């Protein structure tokens, strides 16, 4: 049987992948940009749009990074607004388990699920560094090894809250005056080293029962969290053989959790460049890469690794022949950090030397290596091949322009995927995000009254 392709649309991020120097580049923050992006993705019948999270502005060597797009909305608020201007597409946001609390985040996600008629998803991410923590009440409070312990408990508490209103909790009998059934809401208590919650949830059960849960970490702990809690993995494995291996590894862990293989979808992040011929696509890919990695971008990239000022270097010249600044030898963790940075630099030098790459070409190779480059036919065939041969269940597509980056994909590639019989031809009314992703429904549904 033909396996169905699932696509997510990643709003262009605050990094050098997003080309702002192009004359067609629009605002990264005006609502009209988000509205256009979401409507195009809905026209292309994507499963969901995907937003990253901002906890603090990026800095470079102690100053705000000024070369890339910067500034973005609050993830939850923009998703709620997008629920109003879309009808079918899923709305997935990246939200930290470290700098949120379960009760509040659970009610926020349940709110969007109600407002969207069952279309919300949560990309649960962990972080524990003092840099981001400096914007939050508790600072960098969480020990690094506790990140996934907290994330896992956070997910457990959230799931319990989402399930805590019984399907028939609301009686609303005007004659008797009974609004809630006496035992209609289950109290959720969770007391551990990391949490002390004794909660009564205040949002009724939402259309999906709970949001779709996405996970993006690649560590062993991350994969463990995914097999325990996630419905979708946003992976980085895009090279075919590597993708197949990752797919087998993760799906192979599901049986031990009592889960079916298709209950967890793997949607690697992917970029694409289209052309009327393969040669034209390759040429465009090179042009886009040069816009993504301008000389100053390339120098900055190396400065981040070396922690040194390279403003005097030529981006078209060879790698700097100097030692990195790895901080004080007396600082905690110096030896490990020093070894890791040295290993990274040795690897960069080897790559550059073997192919005689300049600084800029090396950084292009590392950050602007487009996943699918070719004619629409070629790109459609490649995406289908990955899915049919179980290297992925689809992709999280990342355009290089805001907000029009995926327009071309919708227009040219989606019809070809449909012709191949592996992509939907329309949405059905009343489908939830669980339905779009071919996931088993959770809990009960309420009429959305749209």
């Amino acid at each position: 049987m033909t396996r169905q392709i699932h696509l997510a649309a990643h709003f262009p991020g605050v990094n050098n992948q997003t080309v702002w120097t192009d004359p067609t580049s629009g605002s990264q923050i005006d609502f009209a940009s988000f509205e256009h992006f979401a409507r195009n993705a809905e026209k292309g019948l994507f499963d969901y749009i995907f937003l990253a999270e901002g906890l603090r502005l990026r800095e470079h060597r102690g100053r705000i990074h000024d070369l890339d797009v910067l500034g973005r909305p609050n993830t939850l608020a923009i998703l709620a607004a997008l629920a109003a201007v879309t009808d079918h597409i899923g709305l997935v946001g990246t939200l930290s388990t470290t700098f949120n609390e379960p009760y509040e985040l659970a009610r926020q996600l349940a709110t969007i699920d109600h407002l969207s008629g069952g279309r919300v998803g949560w990309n649960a991410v962990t972080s524990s560094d003092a840099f981001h923590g400096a914007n939050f009440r508790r600072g960098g409070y969480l020990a690094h090894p506790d990140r996934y312990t907290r994330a896992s408990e956070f997910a457990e508490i959230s799931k319990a809250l989402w399930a805590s209103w019984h399907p028939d909790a609301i009686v609303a009998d005007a004659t008797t005056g009974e609004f809630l059934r006496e035992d209609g809401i289950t109290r959720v208590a969770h007391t551990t080293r990391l949490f002390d919650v004794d909660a009564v949830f205040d949002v009724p059960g939402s259309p999906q029962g709970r949001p779709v849960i996405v996970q993006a970490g690649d560590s062993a702990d991350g994969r463990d969290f995914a097999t325990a809690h996630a419905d979708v993995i946003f992976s980085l494995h895009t090279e075919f053989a590597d993708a197949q291996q990752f797919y087998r590894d993760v799906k192979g862990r599901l049986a031990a959790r009592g889960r079916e293989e298709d209950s967890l979808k793997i949607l690697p992040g992917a970029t694409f460049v289209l052309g009327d011929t393969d040669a034209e696509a390759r040429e465009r890919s090179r042009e886009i890469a040069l816009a993504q990695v301008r000389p100053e971008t390339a120098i900055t990239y190396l400065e981040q690794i070396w922690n040194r000022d390279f403003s005097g270097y030529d981006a078209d010249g060879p790698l700097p022949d100097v030692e990195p600044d790895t901080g004080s030898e007396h600082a905690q963790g110096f030896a490990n950090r020093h070894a890791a940075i040295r290993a990274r630099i040795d690897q960069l030098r080897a790559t550059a030397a073997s192919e005689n790459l300049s600084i800029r070409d090396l950084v292009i190779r590392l950050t602007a290596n487009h996943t699918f480059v070719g004619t629409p036919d070629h790109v459609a065939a490649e995406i289908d091949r990955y899915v049919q041969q179980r290297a992925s269940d689809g992709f999280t597509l990342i355009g290089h322009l805001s907000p029009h980056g995926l327009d071309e994909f919708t227009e040219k590639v989606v019809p070809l995927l449909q012709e191949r019989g592996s992509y939907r031809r329309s949405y059905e009314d009343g489908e939830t995000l669980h339905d779009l992703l071919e996931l088993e429904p959770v809990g009960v549904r309420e009429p959305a009254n749209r």
Partner: protein
Amino acid sequence: MTERVHIAVGLDGAGWHPAAWREATARPTELTSPGYWRDQVRAADAAGVVFATLEDALSLGGRSYEADAETRRDRARGRLDAVLLASFLAPLTERIGLVPTVTTTHPEPFHLATGLQTLDFASRGRAGARFVAGANEQERANFGRRTGDSTGLDAVARSGSPASTPPRVEQSAHWQAAFREAGEVIEAVRALADSWEDDAIIRDVATGRFLDRDRVHNVDIDGEFFAITGASIVPRSPQGQPLVTVLAHQTVPFRLAAQHADVVFVTPQDADRLAPIVAELDAASAELRAEPERLRVFADLLVVIEDTRAAADQTWARLQERATLVTDARVIVGTPGDIVDEIRALAAAGVDGVRLRPARQPADLVAIAEQVLPRAAAAGILAPDDGAPTLRERLGLPRPVSRHTRQETRA
């Protein structure tokens, strides 16, 4: 000349009367549905309501005065997060200001600030917030994490009546701290809103710089209750800062409003008793106010509206028989004309606006939109909508210049 005032509405679930959900016109099973809120806020928008506040709280019992609010089962329960509900309503409405209630005790001030800035972008300049201090026991248990925290506040029991809720704030260290924290949260929201200057994004292709980092400023807040280092993640929004509103009944909240708010909601029991409230606010403003603009005063009225007084009395009797309303606000039971008379009296007494709290939703909100607003306009007491692009400007409040831009100008 007749004084003209703005008319706002305060929306809460099935309405402000605890028996409202039992009315034949009520939609008690739709309180968390998108259509319920879209229909009502669009109706208010079309009628010329200047803004709608949306109630919220972080526990099942919410801000009810009833001591057993968390456990009783005969009251309408279940709600949506107000900032997100407002964000959803933003693209669906044209002119109306969207003013969600936010609790200042548990949520992260950074998330609150960026959420309100995003609401301002999504509504194209119509965002505000009603800041509420303090937390009850159940809210604290729901969050959990601040137990034993050095900055944590002691929880307080519900008082059972508005007259004593809170008891005089001066007598309670807990409430005093809660109001100090509320002030700190408001100032953090304003500081983060100012952290990007309006012209920070330069897109200078020649130098490869997307923004001028000298025009983006870390806030470096180190307060009694929390610290925030960085600038906002959100560029400066259409209004510059969201409209800051506070409901106040006594000295310490009056002082919070005078020091930090753009708009204060007050609850005089009649127009004559407005004067001492305004006098106290004026005195507090003279002492504390740093905002360049005068504090705007809105008087709250809780309304039951029918076409005749007899019908209104009958409705009121039916509601009160089923549940007794306990409220801080003056209650008006009457015809649309009676409501307009009351608004006229308050206008003459000097308020800038009136916030009507419908006892029943949607019934009394529909009456406000279809009857009260047109009559107030006809009577010449409704401030007209002159098409100002943002909520602040519609209220006569100029767009705040970023504090950093101000500093440069002075230098």
